[in-house]
Structure formats: C-alpha cells, structure tokens
C-alpha cells in the first residue's frame, strides 16, 4: 500500500517531537533552569543554539523539557479519557436500552463544558497545576470517545458477522471483545491522534494563562506568555515556542488525517464518483 503524504509527514513530525521529549529525560544542552543573567538575550551561538531568554536560560533546553511536559500531558490525559470513554461507549452499544440512554445523556452533559472552561473551573478551585490540566483534559475526552466508540460499535453490532456470532451462542461480552473492539479500533485511533493535537493546544493555552505548568517547570505556552511582555525587546523569544506547538499539533493532526484516509474506505472512493 502506498503511504499517503500526510501520513508520512505527520508520523515524521510526531516522531521528532517524541524523540526530543524522550532525549530531554536524559540529556539537555544545559540545565533548563540554570540562570545566567549576565548572558541574557544572547543571540544564537555554538553554546546556546537558539540563544537565551531574559534570565539567561538556554532556550533549546527549555523547549526540550517543555516538549516532554506537553507530550506527558497529552499522552496521559488522552490515554485516560480514551480508555474510560471507549469502555463506556462499548458498554452503551452492548447493553442498549436505558444503559445506553444514560451514558449518552451524561456525555451530552460533558459537551456543555469545553476543555478550556472545565480546566479553568478546576484551576479556580484546586489552584493551577499540570495534574489539574491532565484531569480536565482527560475528563473532557471521556464523552468524546464514548460517542465515537458507541457510534462505531453500533454499526458493527448491526453487521451480519455479529448476528452470526450471536447465532453461534457467543455472549455480549465475548462479542464486544472478539468483534466489536477490533473493528472500532480504527476510528478510535484516528480520534486519539486528533485529541492529542487538541490536548497540546489546550495545555499550551492554559499554561499561557498561567493555569498550567508552574515555574520553573517550562512549558511552551508559558514561555510565550513571558515573551509577550518582552515583545518589543526580544521578539525572537515569541517565535520558537510557537513553532514547537505548531510542529507537534501539525504532526498529530496530519497523522490522524493520514490514518483516516487509509482506514476509512468512504473517503478513498472519492474518485469513483
């Protein structure tokens, strides 16, 4: 099978960001929080590849650690939200009746709270922190995945091979495990990559507002909010973190598109019409 361009580019960008995040665990060019006020606003050089910020901290090291934070938030939050949401969606589709009705009404309720709003509410009550961001994004992902997986699962439940499994005497749990889950994996994975992208954006926005990562823990969003006050003095500081966000989000979003293109037969038949 020919690999579509968007899939290849998306996978490459995601791999790049993940690699940087992983490397930051064991190595950064400089300690990311090391101050060197004498050397503030340094231009790019062999020592500081992208220069330093207003406190003389190395920009590359900060961006690398921020990548780690961003990825950790996205993976944890979307992972939790996907696991719980998909579980509920499978349950709703398998049980039907009032169970399904209740799960879907609850997920409707979840849609009344955009992730940003919910995170702001949590931050107001519990104080700003990265774990709260994870909880908020995970929570908001539950109804999304419940809906996606229920819709896909209901389609699979109507297929003749599921009727055949029922005719064979398989129970609802066994059918969910053997037939439903493998056949809804594609849309769920596509949704995951999209939600990764959304999670990175939400984390950045919250950190920008000061409701996410707290100093000295670096975050692309917070680096941008600090750069904003220095925009006349050092506009270059407002460029790099933004480019990092765009790279990560673009990567996941292209990856999701590419995966959808190769798994959703409806879209690949466009030309036949």
């Amino acid at each position, binding site marked *: 099978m020919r690999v579509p361009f968007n899939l290849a580019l998306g996978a490459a960008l995601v791999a790049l960001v993940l690699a940087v995040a992983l490397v930051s665990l064991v190595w950064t060019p400089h300690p990311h929080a090391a101050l060197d006020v004498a050397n503030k606003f340094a231009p790019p050089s062999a020592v500081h590849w992208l220069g330093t910020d207003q406190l003389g901290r190395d920009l590359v090291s900060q961006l690398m650690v921020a990548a780690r934070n961003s990825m950790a938030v996205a993976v944890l939050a979307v992972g939790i939200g996907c696991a719980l949401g998909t579980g509920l969606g499978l349950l709703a589709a398998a049980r039907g009746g009032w169970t399904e009705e209740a799960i879907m009404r609850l997920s409707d309720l979840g849609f009344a709270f955009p992730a940003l709003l919910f995170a702001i509410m949590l931050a107001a009550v519990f104080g700003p922190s990265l774990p709260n961001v994870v909880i908020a994004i995970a929570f908001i992902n539950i109804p999304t995945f419940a809906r996606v997986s229920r819709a896909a699962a209901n389609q699979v439940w109507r*297929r*003749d*091979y599921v*009727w*055949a*499994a*029922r*005719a*064979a*005497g*398989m*129970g609802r749990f*066994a059918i969910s495990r*053997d*037939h439903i889950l*493998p*056949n809804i994996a594609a849309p769920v994975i596509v949704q995951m990559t999209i939600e990764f992208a959304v999670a990175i954006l939400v984390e950045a926005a919250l950190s920008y507002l000061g409701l996410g990562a707290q100093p000295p823990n670096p975050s692309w969003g917070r680096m941008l909010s600090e750069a904003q006050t220095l925009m006349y003095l050092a506009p270059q500081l407002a460029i790099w973190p933004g480019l990092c966000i765009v790279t990560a989000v673009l990567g996941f979003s292209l990856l999701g598109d590419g995966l959808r293109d190769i798994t959703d037969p409806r879209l690949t038949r466009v030309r036949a019409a």
Partner: protein
Amino acid sequence: MTLLQVDSVSRRYRLPRRALMRPAPVLTAVDGVSFTLARGETLGVVGESGSGKSTLARLVMGFERPDAGRVLFDGQDNNDLPPAALRAARRRFQMVFQDPFGSLDPRRRVGWSVAEPLRALKGTEDPAPRVAEALEQVGLRAAHAGRYPHEFSGGQRQRIAIARAIITRPALLVADEAVSALDVSVQAQILNLLMDLQEELGLAILFISHDLAVVASTCDRLLVMQGGRVLEAGETGAVLDAPGHDYTRTLLAAARL
C-alpha cells in the same frame, strides 16, 4: 417427525413517536404465523420486504421474543431457557445470512470464524480438524482456514458462512436470503450445495427469499407471506399450479421467463 413448531407467533414493534399527545404507532411485523418443519425437510418462506419474513427468522433463531405465541424446537420453547442454556442450545439451529461480504468479520481469519460456534460451546477439543472437515464439506480446502475473507469471492464467502453454520452439526439451518446477493451462475452452486448438505447431514432448512423461482426449485413446501400474515401455504407444486391468492399469481408472473 416435527423438529420446529411455530405456534401462532406475533411480533410488534413500537415505531418512533410522531406527535406528543398521540401514542407511538405500532407495527405488527409478524401476525399470528404458524407452521411446522420436520427433520430433513425444506420449507420456503416467500414475501416482499416488510412481509415479516426476516422477523420470522429472528424469532425462530431466538434473537427476539414473540409478543404472542410460541416457537418450539424439539418440543422446547427457547424463550423459557435461561440465557446460558439458550446459548448452549444454539448449536442445534444455525443461520446463514444474505450478504456474503458482511457475514464474516474482516479482521479474523476464516478458520477463526468457522470455529466460533465451537468456542461458544467452550469445548476442550482442538477445533482445527473440525474446521478442516467443515471447509471440505462446503467445497473448500482445509488450507483456506488461514486466509482472510477479503481473499475470497462472494460465492466462496457464502460457502465459508455455511461451513460455520454446519460445524456444530445442527438439525436446523435458517437461510435468510442466503443466495440473493449472488450472481446467477454462483447462486446455482450455492443452492446445490445446500441441497447436498441437507441430504448428507439430515438438515431441516427454513429457506427465506423474495424470489419465488429460487424457493420453488429448492423447497418441499412453501409459505407465502404478506404484511406479517401467511397468505397461503402448502406443497410447492400445489401452490405453484393452483395459486390461491392474487399476490401469489403476481409473484409467479414476475418470475416467469
């Protein structure tokens, strides 16, 4: 000897409400249908879409409960059985579906799908020899067990679906429009296969179709349904030679070359 006795069964569905104050409309899909099916016999059910023939198949398969009447299999009403016992009893009645492209899980190998009814019985024996035997009975090779459904044509997939249905050596096979999606040249092969298996295994077949010609050439007796009711029933030859109903005459006219 009677294998299946369907005793004035009815099935009603509530349709979505159209207005706030009026009660939800009710569709009577099957309305007081009775028939019997003996071991080794083939009964054809003909009717158009909405005639209730597919609902009848689901009632016989125990996928749905009748609102009235009883479905007795070997004298036992499946709806009296607890869920686990019903699942175990399913080995005696199996089903073949219409769409050969939808009746096999695309992500599972053929052997896995064919063995599914054995797994449902939670037996300890190795299913592989039984799978090989079933595949050979339907004119495929044992080696096909390792392939995926997309590697087969529509007719071959329908053979695989039949292999799955006979692997537990059932007494009854419900074939719901089992050849309707196939090309004429393949359809004849599958019909012949069903008749061969019937003789070999002593199967009773409940053969559901919209196509009178198909039913006529495969069934001992037939049942003409419309709007959930049985219009007429009898020996195939008797019904075809002296149709007792205008609708049956229309079906005959549509099938005549």
